């Protein structure tokens, strides 16, 4: 059995989640419900759930405020929110699981399936720290991103990423320091995320940080010369788009 607590200020929303869990995730047992940050803090400490389904906006604070109150977040949490706004971008960068309202039952099912037996406290901490650092200044763009390799979790400054290269269903990240890591997500996912941070897809398998581009070489082949003189192929049909993007940086 997976023990769960539902935190949402609207009773209707809590009932909905409860009903959905009963129907689609019978392995989940609901051990408590809370309608405020204060309440949730107590109930979580009291019932020690495996997972918390967490709304963001509550009358006495936010779901983030609740996470902040725990010295160590020793439970899984899945954020459930109605708004596709800046917070959602922050979740993506922080590799935090979230579900949008109205809830798609298959999203809920997938989130529950993903919960592992053991909780990696360090991983949770890194995710939450990244989330908070990205959410704290909603006006500026996220500055950090969480990257999970098969055996580790990395929090990196976005502006230290030089480029990303597609390796089938994986993405290889290259950093300013010369290091590189392989992440088990497609380049497309990072393209969507990092476009707002000055990254540009120059080729089917290449996403580069504009900041590290030195020049565009036209002859004999269209190529980007990076800051360390490495060369990145460029899709010919994207030439004009790339020039436009580079001029605008």
């Amino acid at each position, binding site marked *: 059995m997976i023990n769960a607590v539902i935190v949402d200020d609207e009773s*209707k*929303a809590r*009932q*909905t989640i409860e*009903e*959905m869990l009963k129907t689609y995730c019978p392995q989940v047992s609901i051990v408590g419900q809370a309608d405020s940050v204060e309440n949730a803090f107590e109930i979580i400490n009291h019932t020690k759930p495996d997972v918390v389904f967490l709304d963001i*906006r509550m*009358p006495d*604070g*936010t779901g983030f*405020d609740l996470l902040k109150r725990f010295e160590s977040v020793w439970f899984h949490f899945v954020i459930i929110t*109605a*708004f*596709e*706004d800046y917070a959602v971008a922050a979740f993506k960068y922080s590799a935090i699981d979230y579900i*949008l*309202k*109205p*809830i798609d039952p298959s999203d809920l099912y997938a989130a529950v399936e993903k919960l592992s037996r053991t909780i990696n406290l360090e991983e949770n901490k890194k995710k939450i720290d990244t989330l908070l650092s990205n*959410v*704290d200044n*909603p006006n500026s763009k996220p500055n950090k991103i969480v990257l999970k390799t098969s055996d580790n979790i990395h929090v990196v400054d976005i502006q230290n990423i030089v480029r990303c290269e597609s390796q089938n269903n994986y993405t290889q990240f290259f950093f300013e320091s010369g290091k590189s890591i392989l992440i088990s997500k497609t380049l497309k996912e990072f393209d969507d995320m990092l476009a707002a941070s000055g990254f540009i897809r120059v080729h089917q398998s290449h996403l580069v940080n504009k900041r590290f581009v030195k020049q565009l070489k036209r002859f004999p082949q269209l190529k980007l010369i990076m800051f360390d003189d490495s060369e990145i192929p460029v899709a010919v049909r994207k030439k004009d788009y790339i020039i436009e993007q580079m001029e605008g940086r």
Partner: protein
Amino acid sequence: MSTKRLIIGLTLTLFVAIPSFVSGSNMASDSIQHQAAPCSELASRGKNEAWIVSRPDFFVIHIPKKPLPVAIAIATTLFLGILVLSVYGRTKQIKYKTRNMELEQQLLISQMNPHFVFNSLTAIQSYIFRKDPHQAGKYLASFAKLVRLILENSRSEIATIDKEVKTLEYYLELQSMRFEDKFDYEIVVDSEIFRDEMGIPPMLAQPLIENAIEHGISHIQEKGLITIRFSLQGKNIILEVEDNGIGINESIRIQKEKGKKYQSLATNITTERLKKLRQAKGYKIDLTIIDKSERNSNERGTLVKLAIPYKYA
């Protein structure tokens, strides 16, 4: 505007160029005679003899010695100048039009507040999962009616007060269902207003009502009251949204306490939309926000006033 400029330019150029070509190609003095002759003929036929007869003198005296190069130079310069001006004007006009179209599109989108749409859908889903098909059906129907009205309104830049009232009624009904009768509401329209003739940009009140509920009324224990008022003042329709919530000052204080991360989305939507209406349509709409306790310490709540120039729909 630029087309007009082009026509004026070309006409001017022709005026300068043609006489000079004509006079230039017949530089000999007999040509002046030749030109003068028909004039004299005309004069003899004309009624105002004295004036026309004096014309040949005018020609003789004022013809420049070397009119050809000068005239051509002037004509060319003028022509080129005007061409450049009109091309420039045309480009600017196209840019302006594109910008305007973008603004109009954004205006349409801003009527359909995503906040509200997703809240409504979530509410409907919750009725379904709580096995309350009647409530779900009722909510869904009201939502559909509202969406239909909004889509209808979105095709025109203004909505009659009649339509606007209907839209707001559906909207308030949905919100009161969602907040489980936490508030009552009333819509008052002054009798001086021609409800089915006068119109304003649609859905301006909606984000303001959302504010009244979420930042005003949600914080009080007793039942809330939201009053929407339409009144006439000169060339403006005054649209008021009044609530008996905690008041904007207190609400801002609470927001700040929470770290002001959630500044009101609705106010942003409204100011953004007012800005766009001004840019795209030249609409000057004034927004005033009053904390009622500042006016009278016995009162509580927020009053938002919009002064909107009305148009006839």
